[in-house]
């Protein structure tokens, strides 16, 4: 069966510090991968998606970037965090070739920027 991992679970970072959140998927090959952010009490906002290694599409201009160095690894980064980067970050995957109809989410990382 497929599983998705995210770490860390919780992170507190000062403004201006760098960020690296990691997501890995097991049990499948060439998945589509996604990064979302959810502000408190709000819906999810799609940040990035990837259909293959090295292929990243950005949905929202922002202080963040994403990379996919390996088939089942997706990394969300920032060089300098802003207060507005605080939120709940979720990684998700969908089977290759299936498109976006069904996505499977990881446990999330709660980021607090102070």
């Amino acid at each position, binding site marked *: 069966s497929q599983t998705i991992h995210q770490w860390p679970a919780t992170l507190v970072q000062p403004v201006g510090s760098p960020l690296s959140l990691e997501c890995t998927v097991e049990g499948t090959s060439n998945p589509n991968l*996604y990064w979302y952010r959810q502000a408190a009490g709000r819906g999810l906002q*799609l940040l990035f998606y990837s259909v293959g290694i090295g292929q990243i599409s950005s949905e929202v201009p922002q202080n963040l970037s994403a990379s996919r160095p390996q088939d089942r690894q997706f990394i969300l980064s920032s060089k300098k965090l802003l207060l507005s980067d605080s939120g709940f970050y979720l990684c998700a995957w969908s089977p290759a070739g299936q498109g*976006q*109809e069904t996505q499977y989410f*990881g446990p*999330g990382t709660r980021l607090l920027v102070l």
Partner: protein
Amino acid sequence: LAKTTQPISMDSYEGQEVNITCSHNNIATNDYITWYQQFPSQGPRFIIQGYKTKVTNEVASLFIPADRKSSTLSLPRVSLSDTAVYYCLVVGTDSWGKLQFGAGTQVVVTP
């Protein structure tokens, strides 16, 4: 990209059936209707997906009328553990990178 509209919140008692209706007036031919459930501090979980008529699984039923401009998620005999936010999404192969989760419907089940 089809926009969805659903109630902000719904209250129910244990054992009752909960029906959440979602409006998607500009749904496209290639679009599917998908529902997710999210508990606090967790990622959303896929519940059910459909294209037309009725779909049923072990968790819920999804009713889609012929014009597909709306859909209703039905949760039979809810329990306290069904308290969550439920999201209606309209997605299709033409909308790569355009998946939109709205605010969802907060369902609160009380004893």
